């Protein structure tokens, strides 16, 4: 509390609170300004740098060492090589695992976006009995841990005597992923006025025309974001694939098993680096697409989406 006494109160004249509504930006800035006196901007920058280092440092290291000419992942640097990439390419299991994951994630993404958008539209724009219940069901999928969904899936399929395969994996991925699309697209739909849609209908547009020409452009960014998330949720999903998978492995399951069961670690390095690079490209491409799709071309959409999606 000693800080309170020392605070340089009165550097700026207090702003009459009524005027603030007209001038929000200066208020923001003044707030930042105030804090800068307490928490040096450097500290904020360092915090961001630290977090980025912790989040990406290990993966960058992994990428670097995928070019190291040593079967052990540690110093010293033994020289540059691309042989792990060649081995990875020649490794049938690795190729199959990546291909399987790509196929599953693509199918899951497309179906999730279609089903999720449909459900989001229904939940935000239509009135019907049981709406709350269905919304609750969608929401509850998002908070049930994947481990438990995976176990339930395994038990379910064994009880109805369905053989585990890529299909069962994809089915379970779809069920946990499209509610995420519902959440993101609903958030997008809620933010737009219905007046445009009503105007379109009043002007004689059919429901389909209205969806195509009025709604889709508005929620395009949401759908783009949802696609990225849906793809990643399926591609990265370990727990559900681990429990509901058969002979065909997905990429995360392959890495998990190889970390415990094989000596081909540099190959994992190489494959992982390629995957990580592809994911980086995908996210940035998706972001660019979102910017193009959004009318204003403003980044505000991203922040709006992220915060909207999590609410």
């Amino acid at each position, binding site marked *: *509390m000693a*800080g*309170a006494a020392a605070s340089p*109160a009165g550097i700026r004249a*207090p702003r009459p*609170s009524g005027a603030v509504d007209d001038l929000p930006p200066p*208020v*923001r800035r*003044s707030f*930042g300004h*105030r804090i800068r006196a*307490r928490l040096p*901007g450097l500290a904020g920058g360092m*915090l961001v740098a630290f*977090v980025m280092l912790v989040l*990406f440092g290990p*993966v960058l*290291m*992994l990428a670097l060492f995928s070019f190291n000419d040593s079967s*052990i992942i*540690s110093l010293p640097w033994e020289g540059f090589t691309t042989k792990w990439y060649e081995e990875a390419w020649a490794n049938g299991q690795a190729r199959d695992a990546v291909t399987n994951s790509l196929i599953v994630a693509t199918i899951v993404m497309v179906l999730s976006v279609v089903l999720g958008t*449909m459900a989001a539209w*229904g*939940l935000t724009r*239509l009135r*019907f009995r049981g*709406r709350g219940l*269905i919304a609750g*069901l969608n929401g509850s999928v998002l*908070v049930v*841990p*994947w481990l*438990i*969904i995976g*176990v339930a899936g395994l*038990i*379910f399929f064994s009880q*109805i005597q369905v053989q585990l395969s890529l299909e069962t994996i994809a089915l379970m991925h779809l*069920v946990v992923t*499209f*509610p995420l699309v519902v959440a993101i697209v609903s958030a997008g739909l809620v933010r737009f006025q219905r007046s445009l849609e009503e105007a379109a209908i009043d002007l004689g547009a059919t*429901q*389909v025309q209205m969806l195509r020409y009025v709604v889709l452009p508005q929620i395009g960014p949401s759908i783009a974001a949802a696609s990225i998330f849906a793809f*990643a949720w399926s591609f*990265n999903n370990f727990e559900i694939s681990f*429990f509901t998978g058969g002979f065909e492995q997905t*990429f995360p399951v392959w*890495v*998990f098993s190889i*970390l415990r069961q094989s000596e081909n670690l540099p190959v994992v390095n190489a494959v992982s680096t390629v*995957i*990580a690079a592809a*994911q980086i490209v995908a*996210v940035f491409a998706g*972001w660019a697409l979102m910017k193009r799709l959004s009318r204003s071309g403003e*980044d505000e959409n*991203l*922040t709006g989406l992220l915060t909207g999606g*999590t*609410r």
Partner: protein
Amino acid sequence: MEAAAIPVRRSSRAKRLVQPLAFMATPTALLIAFFLAPMLVMLGVAFDRGLLDGGVGFNFTLTNFTDVISDPLNRKVALTTFEIATTAMLVQLIVAVPLAYVIAFKAGRWQVPILLFLVLADELNPMVRIYAWRMLLGREGLINEGLMSIGIINHPIDALLFSQFAVTVVLSTSYLTYTVIPIYGAMKAIDGNVFEAARDLGAGWWTTTRRVLLPLIAPGIFISLLLVYIPLFTDFASPALVGGTSGYMLGNVVNDYVLEAGDLNRGAAMSIIMLGLSALFALVAYRLARINRLES
């Protein structure tokens, strides 16, 4: 589905019936068939005497639950899991609150890139991340080698890998995105005036943080808890890969029941208990988030 193609007038009776069905039937059926039904089947299996006793048909019993709960081993593991999950959650909150604050109020034009990188961090494959940490933290990993080569330590620090520390680090970094973004969302919704007002009333930064900022971002924190704290309890890949002899968590117990011992009944009971507890937690967090949002 074909209903969508029929031009319908607003307020027509047919529309009110057919349209919701057209939009909601498939998604809802899917959720019922492959989310609700598996959960119900699992519930049934949890209360069934089971295959191991050679029982045919459904024989109601509570023994799966009493066995799982009364097993001292499970209680011990539950405690370890609670410790690890809570530590990881606290670490993330300690990082996330200031980070969200910096992004929301101080990052300026860096705001979007930082957010994008956070999203990217989440998109990176979790297995790849775990694997990367493993090679960093190992006895001959880069951190130990680096510290030794500049002479800070003489012997590698063993506790970096195959320890609760390693599990905590990996878990914290795996979920950080989902901790930061809801809190960031709550920060964005704050009207800068309130800080102004607090300052004008003579509040210092600590008082402002505690009395103004934290209450306002509380809904965001509760959502973070909802999205992150629950999955932390069920993670089992991280402890299996970097925990060594000290990372045996509840997720591993479920895995052992289901995939090692093939005891679906107890595995189901264990899952149901965890599901029940997380539902309870979710309900509390959700209520708190709502109450706070309404009050603010």
